[in-house]
């Protein structure tokens, strides 16, 4: 997972998640406020540059991560631009072009805001932020377990596929389906076994029914949050100026 790797390696890894989230939120709100394509494009560029230059996210990573959503965006916008004409025949219609253009730019801006956050902040840091925002405990527990087990299960999955390949499990279409079904079934059974093992391990460490962890400390959080608020305010001001 490219985002994951980039986040752990990011230069802004040590910046308080609150600050980074605040900046991303400001970016999203600004994208919703702004009207003109030029301002939206400027906002998107500012947010992307913050990640690329400020946090030094490698350009190659950035593009690789952005590519799939951009493909979806293109497809959706093209869909908006076809439609039945008065004669009932489908053809290109420019009627929705302004909407499609603005939607695409707004989408890009919000994507850039989000990428700026997730490419610099590992998920556990975001979960801590959600904890401080009083997310229901059950959801937090599910997220913590899901995140950890994701890697465990993925490794198990990859090893399973490798072991099946070694026994020619993927030599053809039918074989591949059969192998996948077997593997997924076996892994589904593992879900219960792994849950039982985790339960036991948790009890051995005095588990009281909730998964509690100590959040990391960010000594410079206050200063960083002020900076983020200022930068975010600037984005909002530009967007607001555009609207009114």
């Amino acid at each position, binding site marked *: 997972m490219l985002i994951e790797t980039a986040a752990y390696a990011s230069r802004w890894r040590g910046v308080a998640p609150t600050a980074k989230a605040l900046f991303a939120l400001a970016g999203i709100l600004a994208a919703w406020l702004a009207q003109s394509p030029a301002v939206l494009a400027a906002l998107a560029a500012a947010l992307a540059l913050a990640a690329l230059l400020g946090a030094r996210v490698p350009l190659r990573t950035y593009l690789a991560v952005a590519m799939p959503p951009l493909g979806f965006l293109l497809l959706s916008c093209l869909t908006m631009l076809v439609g039945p004409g008065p004669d009932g025949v489908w053809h290109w219609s420019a009627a929705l072009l302004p909407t499609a253009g603005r939607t695409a730019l707004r989408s890009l801006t919000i994507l850039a805001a989000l990428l700026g956050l997730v490419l610099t902040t*590992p998920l556990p840091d975001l979960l801590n932020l959600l904890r401080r925002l009083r997310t229901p405990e059950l959801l937090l527990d599910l997220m*913590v377990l899901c995140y950890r087990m994701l890697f465990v299960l993925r490794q198990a999955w990859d090893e399973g596929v490798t072991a099946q390949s070694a026994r020619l499990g993927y030599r053809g279409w039918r074989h591949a389906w059969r192998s996948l079904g077997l593997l997924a079934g076996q892994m589904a059974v593992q879900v219960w076994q792994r849950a039982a093992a985790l339960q036991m391990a*948790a*009890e*051995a460490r005095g588990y009281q029914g909730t*998964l509690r962890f100590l*959040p*990391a400390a960010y000594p410079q959080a206050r200063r960083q949050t002020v900076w983020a608020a200022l930068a975010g305010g600037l984005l909002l001001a530009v967007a607001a100026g555009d609207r009114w």
Partner: protein
Amino acid sequence: MSAVLELRAVDHVYPDGSAGLRDCSMALGRGRRHGLLGANGAGKTTVLQHLNGLLRPTAGQLLLDGQAFDYGRAGLVELRRRVGLVFQNPERQLFSAQVEEDVSFGPLNLGLDDATVRERVAAALDAVGLRGHARRAVHHLSFGQKKRVCIAGVLAMEPEVLLLDEPMAGLDAPMQAELAALLDRLAARGVTVLLSTHDVDFAFRWADDIHVMAAGRCVASGPAAQLAAQTEVLRAAGQHPPLALTLHAELVKRGVLPPGPAPRSTDLLLEALRALPVLEYPGEINV
């Protein structure tokens, strides 16, 4: 020597009807290094899970400080505070993706305040040599490092007794030596350490006391040197006598080494051999 934990005539039958333990008695002397020796399936893990209160005896009892243990909520919390258990497979006991977060899980469950928890996490990571890895993701660590995170997670609870299930499995020789040294440091600080193993040479080399298991029975317990000499008992449990002991006995019989207590490892035996004068004999002249 007072026993901090004791199993007295414990039977355990699993829900599926299979017998895990049969009439098992075993006492853990305080502050000593214990080796729990047995073949795969002998019941070592079942014993460890009894000592930490994860399993309850079907018959017989668990004694803590010589008192019959009370399986109430408060009793279990205290037992798990005092007796830490490290499982064999790291992937099945680490819940949190970040090292220091996971290590903080146990101390937080003890109800300690944040500052104390932070101190303990730092100390535990120091103890296992992972101080610089506090903020790393667990899934980016090597197998040996994950294993040490598991140990840190238990150490941070500052247990009096540390139980480890097959801690050497999957580690190569240098990593094993490192882990043994860590456990020695803990024992020197007064922590009672019990580890399970199927390697009689390692048990003999490392442990003060050895407890032998076979087919769910606790066959024998005693100081390592004494127990290792009980060839019959070991054979009955499917174990060879330790190699260092056997070699030493043969060499003493043949007058190569002087009689006396056997060295605990083949390394020490080699040292003893190397201390002997080198003989010149005809065969060497030709070389």
